[in-house]
């Protein structure tokens, strides 16, 4: 019952006309920011920080606005993934795999509706979980040391092979290229710079946002120019948007499973939404098996990553609020805002400032319903933004990519690097090498290496330390299963009547 009175307190704070307006405005802006390639939740929130100060908003109002933008961007990212094959932000990367094939098959509307509902389910469940178990769940972070994190990242990579089913060697090559890029920059364990060529711009390594915009958006421009738009993703038509009830109902377990997994991935600091959407997609692909048709444009293929990444977005708020450890780039920005407002997140926040915490949770719940309305019945408004003629859209996408990347570091160097990635993406597409593993390598490689080396420092180089704890052991077993199972299952599942229906009903 305590939770109900807390929620009542929260809604009392959140249900003022001002905060409601801010939630609607934030959701709208967030969805647009998310839908535009190059602008993701972290730039979106960072751009709006000065506005909250200029408006003189108090702590709760500022948080409502910024978290609405955060959730909105997580919803919006899928729109350009589905329509353009360009992820609007990095967690929406996995949504391109099935969303775009669906759009090409003339089912863009179905993909948008199903992924929108999946986003809603993921975000709603995560917010409820945040409300109920946040203080206890924070303890999970204490159970994860270097060995456990290394095993977690190993699990992510072990399932990679199953992703590019046509050629695993190419997927492996791509992930090694990503890992190699991740080595660039300051080596945290010796304090020396590696592979920077003395260039200060490379001292912190390659930002994965630069890589993702280059590999997806800029390479799309090259392909468009080469084929005069024929082979390009741009120009998918969206007909009447109807709700595919039966198909959506068939994804219900996918949405629930992925919400749970995504939430836990979000709670772990350093894993975040991208890992959440990746792991949920690979998990559902594994459960469905070859018969599931993942990658060819199936409803579960868009429901899984969207439920996963939106749940992870909620999960990432847990370590931020309870430990002061940001679980993702965007929560790092939110953390900064909290500190500026003289609220110090940490173990005592729930007790010290209940009105802030519960006001936030209540406004997240409100934002979710607003977003569901905007992203399902009203999705056409946002689609219009992306549905202008290619001759206008592509220069626009290019411009926003440049502006978005420039806003990250304010240096021209990242722009040059983005073009280099664009060329690389173009060559990879010609050679049929998947680009998603490159991004994952860059995204996870740095943390994976750091955690391995920390583990080796702590254990004096004893390799068994990596397998010593129960959590690590379970993760390693999951990794081994994830790596080996697809090889055997492929043979087994060729038989008719795969066990899929058992899971379904």
């Amino acid at each position, binding site marked *: 019952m305590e939770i109900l009175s807390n929620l009542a307190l929260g809604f009392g704070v959140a249900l003022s006309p001002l905060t409601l307006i801010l939630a609607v405005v934030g959701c709208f802006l967030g969805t647009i920011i998310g839908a535009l390639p190059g602008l993701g939740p972290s730039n979106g929130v*960072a751009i709006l920080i000065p506005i909250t100060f200029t408006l003189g908003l108090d702590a709760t109002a500022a948080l409502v606005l910024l978290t609405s933008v955060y959730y909105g961007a997580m919803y919006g990212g899928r729109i350009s993934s589905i329509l353009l094959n360009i992820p609007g932000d990095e967690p929406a990367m996995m949504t391109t795999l099935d969303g775009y094939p669906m759009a090409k098959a003339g089912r863009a509307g179905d993909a948008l509706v199903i992924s929108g509902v999946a986003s809603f389910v993921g975000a709603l469940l995560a917010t409820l979980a945040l409300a109920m178990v946040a203080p206890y769940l924070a303890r999970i972070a204490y159970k994860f040391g*270097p060995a456990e994190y290394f095993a977690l990242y190993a699990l992510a990579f072990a399932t990679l092979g199953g992703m590019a089913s046509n050629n695993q060697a190419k997927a492996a090559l791509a992930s090694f290229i990503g890992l190699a890029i991740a080595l660039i920059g300051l080596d945290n364990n010796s304090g020396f710079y590696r592979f920077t060529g003395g260039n200060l711009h490379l001292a912190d390594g390659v930002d994965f946002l630069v890589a993702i915009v280059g590999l997806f958006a800029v390479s799309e421009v090259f392909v468009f120019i080469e084929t005069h738009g024929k082979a390009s993703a741009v120009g998918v038509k969206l007909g009447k948007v109807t709700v595919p009830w039966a198909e959506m109902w068939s994804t219900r377990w996918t949405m629930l499973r992925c919400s749970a997994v995504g939430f836990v991935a979000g709670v772990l600091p350093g894993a975040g939404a991208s890992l959440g959407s990746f792991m949920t997609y690979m998990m559902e692909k594994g459960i469905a098996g070859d018969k599931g048709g993942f990658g060819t444009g199936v409803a579960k293929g868009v429901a899984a990553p969207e439920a996963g990444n939106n749940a992870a977005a909620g999960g990432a708020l847990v370590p931020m609020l309870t430990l002061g450890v940001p679980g993702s780039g965007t929560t790092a920005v939110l953390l900064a805002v909290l500190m500026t407002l003289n609220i110090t997140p940490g173990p005592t926040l729930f007790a010290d400032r209940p009105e802030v915490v519960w006001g936030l949770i209540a406004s997240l719940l409100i934002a979710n319903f607003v977003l569901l309305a905007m992203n399902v019945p009203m999705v056409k408004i946002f689609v219009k933004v992306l549905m202008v003629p290619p001759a206008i859209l592509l220069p626009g996408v290019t411009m926003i990519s440049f502006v978005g990347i420039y806003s990250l570091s304010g240096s021209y160097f990242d722009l040059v690097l983005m073009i280099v990635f664009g060329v690389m993406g173009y060559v990879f597409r010609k050679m049929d090498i998947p680009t998603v593993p490159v991004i994952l390598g860059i995204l996870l490689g740095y943390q994976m290496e750091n955690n391995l080396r920390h583990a080796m420092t702590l254990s004096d180089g004893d390799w068994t330390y990596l397998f010593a704890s129960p959590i690590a052991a379970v993760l390693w077993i999951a990794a081994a299963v994830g790596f080996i199972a697809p090889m055997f299952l492929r043979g087994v599942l060729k038989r008719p009547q795969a066990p899929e229906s058992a899971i379904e009903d």
Partner: protein
Amino acid sequence: MSRKLEPAEYVWEDSMKFTALKALGTSAVIALVTTSSAWAAECIAPANPGGGWDFTCRQVGKLLYDLQLVDQPVQVTNMAGAGGGLAYSYVVNERNTDPDLIVAASSATTTRLAQKAFGDATADQVRFVGAIGADPGVIVVAKDSPFQSLGDMVEAIKADPGSVAFAGGSAAGGFDHMKPLQIMKAAGFTDIGSIKYIGVDGGADAITQTVGGFTQAMTGDMSEIVGFIQSGEVRALAVLTEDRVPGFEDIPTAREQGYDVIAVNWRGFYVPKGISDDEFNAWAEKIQAVADSAEWKETMTANGLAPFTKVGGDFQSWVDQVVADTEALSKEIGVIQ
């Protein structure tokens, strides 16, 4: 902003000229905004949002405006890269004469300059204009740790250097890494290289690792541990200041436990080298005014900062001394040649 919109009010008097005047009014507003941005102050935080430099820029920037020391909200620019090196070389090379620019700095800035971690850059390429507070260095253990005092820990390390691993928020060789090394050196321990240290992403992460039992101690700043001290999950063995910190009187200093180590992470600013002495002094006065304000004192208490105000020429000469000392120490412990 509303004051600048006045030209548009004329439109009600003569509806015929509505469009033309509205356009005029709009362009006047744009012109005003454009010109005013030239004298609006900017604060560069050489890191992503969320860290100490970002905090310094945003808090002090807000107070500069609230106290009417500047007439526009201070624009905060995050310029992450090379642990502050990117912003440093940017200021030196491209903004060297900009009088409206301040850049957040801390002990990490001078440590890296002393260790030549910013390429060829040296500390005399900018002017250090003021410090407004200091984050005292702390050594922290989990609540169930067997170490009751700094002495217990020092003895354990002396007996078996591998038995105690430290987690901190800076890379190897950084400021957090130096603190335990300085303590062990003060205790007469010479095999500095055998002390285990892992550099994680920030102080809160370092605490999580320590509370989780993966490392035996955390080395960091007071601001990073306040919430965890209050919730009782960690105990501070020592604070590395001259005197005990107000508000945290029950934490003993390292000095009173017999290890004469002072390590505070000051928070302050540098400005471009090429500005005039008047402009430099004007910034020094503004920073002094922020430091003296009641609002800033509140912010410091809430965030575990201890008073530490040095501005202008005083601060510059203090920084010069710190850089020289750090360089000598870094050579001694082998972080640089």
